[in-house]
């Protein structure tokens, strides 16, 4: 069976702007796939092409193995989409919108609907114009999570939620995946991605620059090490892959390419370990490596 989402070489231009410039993205069945990138990098455009809202200018896009532009409505019955900016009809209540979207997708799980309303503390009798941004988002989330679908497409779905609701959201998405279903989660809340995602793709300027599991990505970056040794330390400064080394008597701080971590630890061990902390790189550091100037590029 084909993967739920297969995109290769996708190009989309708006006038002179090349919003997507040969983008690749693969999301496998049963995974939560993090889709990371700064504002304007093309995440939402990719999702809109994937949903058949925008027509691609080049490349291949397959949703459940078929073309989303040609078969939009049929494919949509198998997925639920939550945009970052949810706008509701001023005269419909949240409950009505949930039912409307759910039934248009082919049905709602009644028990799940009630449970989600309770967990998200959402009042379904309010009219659309009376909801705050976060509550509008909850309406779309409840509609999506209570729908009987195979794929969730979430475009920065928690930008209006408070931390408490965000953790409810994370549990619900986890639960969704545990039943073998798939999630594409576009986000720039790195902690959320780190907590939820099995694999991530990082995009910049309409291209994918990195993809893999978090541990694979970590392997490409550095681990920070702080240690205290019994004897004075020697030999670390000669080791390739060690950066920003600071030795202060028996104490040592450095960063090391994760691939050389073993060798570095060997040297420390020879000097006798009194204490040791090794911190794996956070997603933030991965992210900054591609966008920021905070970490130097690897040699």
């Amino acid at each position, binding site marked *: 069976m084909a993967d739920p989402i297969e995109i290769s070489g996708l190009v989309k231009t708006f006038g002179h702007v090349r919003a997507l410039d040969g983008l690749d993205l693969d999301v496998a069945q049963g995974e939560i796939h993090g889709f990371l990138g700064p504002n304007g990098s093309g995440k939402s455009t990719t999702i809109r092409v994937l949903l058949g809202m925008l027509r691609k200018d080049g490349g291949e896009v397959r949703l459940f193995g078929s073309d989303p532009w040609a078969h939009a409505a049929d494919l*949509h019955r198998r997925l639920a989409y939550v945009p970052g*900016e949810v706008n*509701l009809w001023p005269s419909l209540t949240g*409950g*009505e919108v949930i039912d*409307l*979207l759910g039934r248009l997708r082919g049905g709602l799980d009644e028990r799940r609907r009630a449970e989600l309303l309770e967990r998200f503390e959402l009042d*379904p009798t309010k009219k659309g114009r009376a909801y705050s941004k976060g509550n509008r988002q909850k309406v779309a989330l409840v509609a999506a999570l209570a729908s009987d679908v195979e794929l969730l497409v979430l475009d920065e779905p928690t930008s209006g939620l408070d931390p408490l609701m965000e953790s409810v959201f994370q549990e619900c998405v986890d639960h969704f995946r545990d039943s073998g279903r798939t999630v594409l989660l576009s986000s720039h809340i790195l902690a959320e991605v780190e907590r939820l995602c099995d694999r991530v793709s990082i995009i910049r300027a309409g291209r994918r620059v990195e993809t893999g599991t978090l541990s694979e990505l970590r392997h490409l970056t550095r681990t920070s090490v702080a240690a205290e040794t019994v004897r004075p330390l020697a030999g670390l400064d000669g080791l390739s892959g060690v950066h920003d080394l600071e030795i202060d008597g028996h104490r040592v701080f450095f960063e090391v390419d994760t691939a050389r971590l073993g060798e570095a630890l060997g040297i420390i061990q020879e000097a006798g370990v009194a204490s040791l902390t090794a911190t794996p790189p956070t997603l933030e550091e991965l992210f900054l490596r591609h966008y920021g100037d905070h970490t130097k590029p690897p040699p």
Partner: protein
Amino acid sequence: MTGTWTLLRHFLWRDRWMLTWWSLGTTVLYWSQAVSVKGLYATQAEFDAAAASMEGNAALISMAGPARALNTVGGQVTWQATAFGAIVVGLMSMFLVVRHTRAEEESGRDELLRAAAIGRAAPTVAAVLVALVANVLAGALVAASLVSVPLAVADSVALGVGLAAVGAVFTGTALLAAQLTGGARAAYGLAGAVLAVAYVLRAIGDVGTPFLTWISPIGWYQGMYAFSGLRWWPMLPLLAAAVLALAAALWVFARRDFGAGVLPTRPGPARASAALTRGLGLATRLQRGSVIGWAIGMWLMGLAYGSMGSDVGDLIGDSELSRDMFARGAGDLVDGFYATAIVLLALMSCGFAVSSALRPRGDEDVGRVEVLLATGLSRTRWLLASMAVTVAGSVVVVLAAGLGLGSGYALVTGDDAAVVDLTVATVPYVAPVLATAAVASLLFGLAPRLAGLAWLVLGYAVVVLMFGELLSIPERLQGLSPFHHLALVPAEDFRWAPFLALTALAAVLGGAGVAAFTRRDVEVR
């Protein structure tokens, strides 16, 4: 108040084209009257004769205002332009005010602004100032253009100053509406209703119940009698009303919560009915309120025209010019009057049809359509459902106008058959109404950002009806108005050909709109 100045400049920049077009449009309305009337009559005797025939014309008076000094260019300009000028600045003020207040608040953008280091009332005050600037600009341009004709300076200035003052009154009522209601659409509805009531009050008042004119801001403006014994004191009630409305609005503003209206929003059902999620359910639900509102409004409008009864014959008089304008040269004057009244009612009903046809654009523009179309609902089904409601709603609204007209006439004259006759005469106007709406649908499909231009078709049709003969617009150009082709029932016999042709045109344009929409990108905000 901190930040008001910055915001004002920001708003003025954002609205620069809106301000330009609205104020230029208003100016052209006045100036073109002056220029066209100037060249229309070869001799003063001809002018006097034409004026005499207009002076006794109740229908024209109800549409335009009190007939004074109609045998002068200034008097003609005042008569032809002031009522519509007041409506134009009223609409401009309403759009400017609501757009920067309630609409912003509803979208949440206002929150962003208010969170910045600006005073709580700064956006509201800046919005009012923008509208006042726009009104003063329109008034100044009108005055300057009339002086340039040249017309008497004091009276020209009075027309401009009065216009700005009327605009200020409607700025106040729009701001009050924006405070009372909980959403932009409702605010437009309320502010628009105030405008309509002001117009209707003076329409009825001018024909025979003067005190009604004196409770309408438009009546005060026309009561300045520019070019016919100018007097300035009606400026007092105008300014007082403007100040009062603004003060009331600010008083409400200071006492309500952010995002809240004063008119309560009641909770609704927690579950959707089965009907909402099937077929036309959603489209019907979204437009139900506006169809009902328009139907009642148009029924009342029809009633107002119908209740002039058969007396219009005496009032119109029997001069040739009057015949040309009203009966279009055909047979009985009363029939001619009602034929024209029907076109007028159809043009008003078209306001519903165009705004209804533009709803999909509104949904797309604010990003609602995305969530909806990401479900099993196809683009074609979504758009067709909305168009079906536009068609059905237009039929209802036009039918209501016809029923009102017939009922009013029957009430006054006791001729009960008129109910059916006048209704049957009105219903075929669904065809040009829908043809105009279909232009909106086509634009939505092809170039969504330009969809609003469909209003120009309606505006052009109004110009052709009102001024087509007067400005002697060539027949071929008049024919561009969809409302120019139907037989003028009851003055003429009904003809099927133009009706069927317009219906077919509407179907083709609408179908092309759907086809185009399924081939284009859904617009991304």
